[in-house]
């Protein structure tokens, strides 16, 4: 799998784009203290007034500015670390907790898993965005901008809710995946030879689960991003929404919140301006490249699976050839030949 990925230019392109954006974002925080330039008006060289914010994209402000005059390019760069960070933490959190739940349950009898599936069936048909909205709406909408709880509390609360909501489906998936591995011949042999559940997990299941988990991570990353975008459309911005006299506003300018903020602000008055299009296209590209990244991982994983049965070591091939040879079937071909169990 690793070799296939190393030779895949599309994989490297996706990795380069996503990592590049992340580095730029952290760079802006470290070297410029997270500063975003604010330009209210645009003047010609002779001092003539040209336009006021929101300024359209130009060579000075590549993506234009928003109504408050903030440079959208810098705002996008600064916000990316939040968007990517939230999605990564939620994806990793869900995966870690799901593994803790799923692995012991996968070793239990099929009946326990059947009951679990029965109990969770009702949960698996409900749109996550709807459930998240109903839980987050009362807690993360603030009517007094001077009495907003600390950022850490807001962020940790929302992260916990987002992680917990994804647990049932992911746990069921990992149980099914692990049980499928457990039913394989090599696992039955490992059990027959007396391997304890922990040993079987550590030595046999984990190496097989890692490629799947890589794909699951990307799936969860995209799912979380889409959930954040959906919530922001409902005016539930990440880390809270402030209700002001002029409308709602986010407390952190990460990409999904920016999209929801500008969408709700402008869909009623003017249509398709750069403010609304910049985060939309940015988000669509992130989802697109993340999907592409995942499809390349899946492709590499598929190649690995396909290669497995036909991958014969030279010594084993020689042994087989000798065994089927009619001339002298008992001649040793290679001393200490090792049979590749893969």
């Amino acid at each position: 799998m690793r070799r296939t990925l190393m030779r895949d230019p599309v994989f490297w392109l996706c990795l380069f784009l996503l990592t590049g954006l992340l580095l730029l974002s952290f760079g802006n925080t470290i070297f410029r203290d997270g500063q975003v330039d604010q330009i209210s008006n645009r003047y010609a060289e002779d001092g003539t007034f040209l336009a006021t914010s929101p300024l359209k994209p130009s060579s000075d402000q590549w993506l234009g500015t928003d109504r408050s005059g903030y440079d959208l390019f810098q705002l996008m760069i600064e916000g990316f670390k939040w968007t990517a960070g939230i999605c990564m933490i939620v994806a990793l959190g869900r995966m870690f907790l799901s593994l803790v739940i799923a692995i012991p349950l996968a070793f239990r009898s099929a009946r326990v898993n059947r009951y679990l599936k029965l109990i969770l069936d009702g949960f698996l048909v409900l749109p996550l965005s709807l459930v998240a909205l109903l839980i987050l709406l009362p807690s993360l909408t603030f009517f007094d901008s001077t009495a907003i709880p600390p950022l850490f509390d807001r962020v940790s609360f929302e992260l916990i809710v987002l992680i917990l909501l994804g647990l049932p489906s992911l746990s069921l998936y990992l149980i099914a995946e692990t049980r499928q591995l457990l039913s394989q011949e090599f696992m039955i042999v490992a059990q027959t030879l007396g391997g304890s559940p922990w040993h079987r997990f550590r030595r046999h299941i984990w190496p097989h689960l890692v490629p799947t988990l890589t794909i699951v991570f990307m799936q969860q990353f995209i799912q979380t991003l889409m959930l954040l975008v959906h919530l922001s459309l409902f005016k539930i911005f990440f880390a809270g929404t402030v209700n002001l006299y002029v409308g709602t506003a986010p407390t952190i300018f990460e990409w999904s919140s920016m999209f929801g903020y500008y969408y709700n602000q402008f869909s009623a008055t003017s249509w398709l301006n750069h403010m609304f299009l910049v985060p939309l296209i940015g988000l669509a590209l992130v989802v697109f490249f993340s999907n592409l990244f995942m499809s390349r991982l899946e492709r590499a994983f598929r190649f690995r699976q396909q290669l497995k049965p036909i991958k014969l070591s030279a010594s084993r091939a020689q042994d087989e050839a000798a065994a089927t040879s009619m001339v002298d079937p008992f001649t040793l071909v290679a001393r200490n030949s090792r049979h590749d169990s893969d």
Partner: protein
Amino acid sequence: MVFIARKSIQLIVAFFVLIAISALPALVAQMKFNPASYWEGLKQQFAQLTKLDEITYFNVTAQKEFLLLPTISPFIKETLIIFTTAMLVSAVCAIFYAYLFYRSGRKTRMMLKQTTRTLEMVPDLFWIILSQFLVLYLFKTTGYDKIEIAGSYAEYIRFLPILTLTLTTLFFFIKWLTTQVLEQEAAPFLELARAKGIRPAALFWKHLIPTMIYRFYLFFRANIITVLSSLVIIEYTFEVQGMFRFVFYNGQMPILMVILFLIYLPIFIIDLLAEWLIPNAWKGGI
């Protein structure tokens, strides 16, 4: 008999789980998890079960309270129309695409695969905005104003929500069907049928499709949450007078409980019908 008992237990358990979910808003208050308040909420929801016909909601337009259960039927109808039409259209289109894919040569297959894989990566939100933009652009350039981009209390909007939900699910279905066609193509039963001289069209429609229908349904069932999530956002952005948009504006716990039942029940019935109506042979049995 065992089947009916099993399904009845499943329904009862699901209802309990849905009640537990509908009480979740009581679990959180001021960013703190409060189990005691959740317990109270649960008790309240169970008490409400006996008085389902008394649940009311406040209609902002009419500025008065209405009984939920008879008044919600147009909202359910609207959601069902959009959901079922989009699902049928995308399933039929995906099956025809699979047929086209099955009959195509290597080069065409590669091209089709690349195109659909790229389109599948586009998020649902992009389809929504793009469709609204295209309709507005059409209006600005030609003056054609027959396509609605947003509904209202008195006006139904169906074309664009159905179109965007269809597009979102179509590529999703296509991906699965294409993989299945590639996997099943070399199956012994198809080889045998081909050896007997059956034409490729008959091979696809009579032999390949029946073996895939049940698994296609299972795939759809496993991913229904994604489809419904898209529907939630479509109803909200297009202002569809549907069930999901209704719950967004009326999120009180008793209303939520009824809506969750109303979401689960049709899916449960479809499950039941699929298990009953799809022949055993199509499920891989004898």
